[in-house]
C-alpha cells in the first residue's frame, strides 16, 4: 500500500493524473467517515453500499435539474445508514449543522491551529482544521 509515487507517468495516483480524487475537502471527509465506520464495525460495507445504491437510484428516478454529484449522494447514504443503526439521526445532524452555521461572521476555522493550510490546492489534502476542534457556543 506504500507504492512509491509515480508523479509523471500515466499510472500516477489520482491526484496527479489530471483528475483529483476529491473535488472539495468535505468530499474526502465524507469518504473517510464511511470507510472508518465500516472498518470499525459500526456498519458493514454492503449495508452502506445498499444505501448508496438506493440514493443513486432515487436521484436517477427523480431526474432532477441539478447536476449529478456523487459525494452528495454518498453523504446522504452515510446518514441513512447511521440513522438505520440509531447511531446518529438526521435531526441531530441538522441541529448541529445549524449550530455551526451560527458561528460569527468572519469566524476562521483555521485560527489558533498554528499551521498554514494551503487552500489554494483545494483538493481535500489540507483540511485538518475541519474536525480537530469543537466550537463552543
Amino acid at each position, binding site marked *: 500500500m506504500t507504492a512509491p509515487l509515480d508523479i509523471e507517468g500515466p499510472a500516477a495516483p489520482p491526484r496527479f*493524473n489530471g483528475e483529483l480524487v476529491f473535488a472539495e475537502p468535505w468530499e474526502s471527509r465524507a469518504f473517510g467517515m464511511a470507510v472508518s465506520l465500516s472498518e470499525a464495525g459500526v456498519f458493514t460495507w454492503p449495508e452502506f453500499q445498499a444505501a448508496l445504491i438506493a440514493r443513486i437510484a432515487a436521484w436517477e428516478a427523480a431526474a432532477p435539474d441539478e447536476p449529478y454529484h456523487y459525494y452528495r449522494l454518498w453523504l446522504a447514504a452515510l446518514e441513512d445508514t447511521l440513522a438505520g443503526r440509531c447511531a446518529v439521526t438526521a435531526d441531530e445532524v441538522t441541529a448541529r449543522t445549524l449550530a455551526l452555521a451560527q458561528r460569527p461572521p468572519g469566524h476562521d476555522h483555521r485560527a489558533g491551529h498554528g499551521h498554514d493550510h494551503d487552500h489554494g490546492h483545494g483538493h481535500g489534502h489540507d483540511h485538518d482544521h475541519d474536525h480537530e476542534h469543537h466550537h463552543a457556543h
Partner: protein
Amino acid sequence: MTTTDGGPGEAPPVALRTEALEQLLTERGLIDPKVMNEIITTYETNVGPLNGAKVVARAWTDPEYRRRLLQDGTAAIAELGFSGPQGEHIVVVENSATTHHVVVCTLCSCYPWPVLGLPPSWYKDPAYRARVVKEPRTVLSEMGLELDDDVRITVHDSTSEVRWLVLPERPAGTEHLSEEQLVPLVTREAMVGVAKVAAP
C-alpha cells in the same frame, strides 16, 4: 474549491453538514479522526492505478503469474502487497485482439480500490453507467476507442461481490521492455477497458 473559508454564510450547506456529522461521530467515539485522516491520505496519495499497472506489467512478463492472476485475481494481487477494502474479490479478465472486456458498475460505482484507487468522475457518471451496457461499442468509440466489428465485447457489471480488473493487451513493439519499463505505459482507463495500452 475551498468550502470553509469566508465565514458560515458562504459555506455550502453540504460542507457544513459533513462537518456536523463528523463532530457528532467523533464525540460519540464512533470515528477516530487520526485513523480517518490516515485513510484519506492513503487514498489520496498511495493507492492509485500505479498498483494495478504493476500487476499488469508483472502479468505481461511472467506467464506463471499471469496464469495465477486470471485464476485467482485477489490472491495474485495480494502477492504484490495490494489488498484492502473493495479488493476482497477481484476477478481479472484478459483483453486480446479478438476479445474486449470493459467494466462498469450500473448500480453505484463499485471499483477495485486496492489496484485502481478511487473511481474517476466518468466511471461514476449516470450516462456511462447506463449506456455502456446497452451500446458498448458506441460508448467506447465516443471515449476514443474504436474496435473492429469482429471484436467481441463483454461488459462486466461490478457487484458487491465482485470487482473486475481488465488485463489489457500488451502493445506490439514492447517485447524488449522490462517489467519496470512497462509499468508507466499502463493506464487506469486500460484497466477498466475503455482504452488500449499504447506502445511508447
